[in-house]
């Protein structure tokens, strides 16, 4: 009896860790990304009144697989050290919202029922992987790669590469330029202003 309980315990612990270790980055991303697409396709969000609802539901899914902490840290690069803990937290949330607004608007405006095609995954050691996808369009296709890292057997995105351009590196260049002249709070304020701008634009166009 004792032994069988022990065996069961070992099985549970090992089995659990095996299944966690066996999680593949592509599988971890596939579900949530397909969920985002189904929210985009769902006709119940048609019409501008449901826009905000749709954006919030997509953001909720996005926040499960994107590590905005890592994204923020990397997008600030060396300047991360200039931010105190509170500024880091506020920056992370503001940057996440900024990216959410910007790209949701773009995706919603130009979405024409495309699906994401998962091409391959390349592991870099145990802790990092690149998941390659593409989005077929009318006359071309957009290559979209996700850089991911693993945490407790699950994979999170810390960079997106669109047609060979790393989003994080692109923002790091811009943030570096701005932080050469301005303070962390001023940078956060700039992001906040962009969000307000986009919300107002959204209202006038809808």
């Amino acid at each position, binding site marked *: 009896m004792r032994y069988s309980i022990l065996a069961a315990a070992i099985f549970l612990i090992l089995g659990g860790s095996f299944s966690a270790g066996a999680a593949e980055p592509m599988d971890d991303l596939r579900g949530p990304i397909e969920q985002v697409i189904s929210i985009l396709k769902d006709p119940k969000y048609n019409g501008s009144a449901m826009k905000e609802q749709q954006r919030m539901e997509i953001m909720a899914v996005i926040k499960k697989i994107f590590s905005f902490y890592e994204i923020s840290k990397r997008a600030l690069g060396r300047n991360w050290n200039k931010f105190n803990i509170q500024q880091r937290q*506020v920056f992370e*949330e503001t940057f996440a919202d900024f990216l959410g607004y910007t790209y949701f608007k773009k995706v919603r405006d130009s979405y024409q029922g495309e699906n994401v095609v998962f091409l391959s995954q390349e592991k870099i050691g145990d802790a990092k992987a690149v998941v390659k996808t593409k989005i077929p369009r009318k006359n071309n296709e957009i290559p979209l790669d996700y850089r991911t890292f693993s945490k407790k057997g699950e994979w999170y995105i810390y960079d997106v590469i669109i047609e*060979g*351009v790393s989003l994080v590196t692109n923002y790091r260049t*811009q943030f570096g330029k701005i932080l050469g002249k301005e303070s962390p709070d001023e940078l956060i304020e700039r992001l*906040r202003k962009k969000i307000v701008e986009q919300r107002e634009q959204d209202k006038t166009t809808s």
Partner: protein
Amino acid sequence: MNSAAGVSLAQSAKDFKEASSGLPPHFHAKAESTNHYSSEHSMESDNPEFQEEDSDYLYEDEEDETQSYASDPLKPFNDVMFHFNDKLYFWVLKPIGRGYRAIMPDAIRIGIQNFFVNLSTPIRFVNCLLQAKGDDAGNEFTRLVTNTTVGFLGFWDQAKAHQHLDKKEEDFGQTLGVWGVESGWYIILPFLGPSTLRDSAGRLGDMFLDPLYYLEPAELSLEIWAVDKTNDISFRIGDYETIKEAALDPYESIRDGYLQMRAKKVSQ
């Protein structure tokens, strides 16, 4: 963190006000100790390998960074050209592109695009050869033969549809890069947009491989070029706006994006 984005925006705005309103220090200390941020972040990587490499994150891609910051001595000129191209797009190219898109069916626009892509095969073919990419050159040659015949002078991309042959985007700027020529100064060309000294030289070289260049009279070749560009723009309306809207510093964003994209293409 799991709160809906709208709520978290309000929350972060609140945080921001609190942070900047000069609260007494003990308040901050308390706020920090209950803050999950300072103790354990929910999404922070705990994988030792990632962490270890993580300590270098500050310097990751440092080369990219320095490369991207480096050598923009033409900035004053580029600023003027950036502004010029920006206005050119919004005042001229975009309205033309939209009008064109409104009257031309998708199928025809795609056909015209295919036709011009097929016509410019010599540029890609020769540059594949110059980069010693024999298979890719063969790929381009097969595409040319298939699309010019079965694809009715290139209007249909039959090679892609049936033989699954994608075009290989090679140009002389990339060839020079493969040969070890550095990209050189960043330069924004009027009408043509972002480039570098190397890629500008590349454009010039490719011009001689473009059949359109040899059309007589020169006006005709310019007119056809305009059709090509108008057709092209009709597919890309909105892209520039997106990049601009997503940027805090559009000039730097586009510069970095261009340099990253070209570096990637040269490495492929």
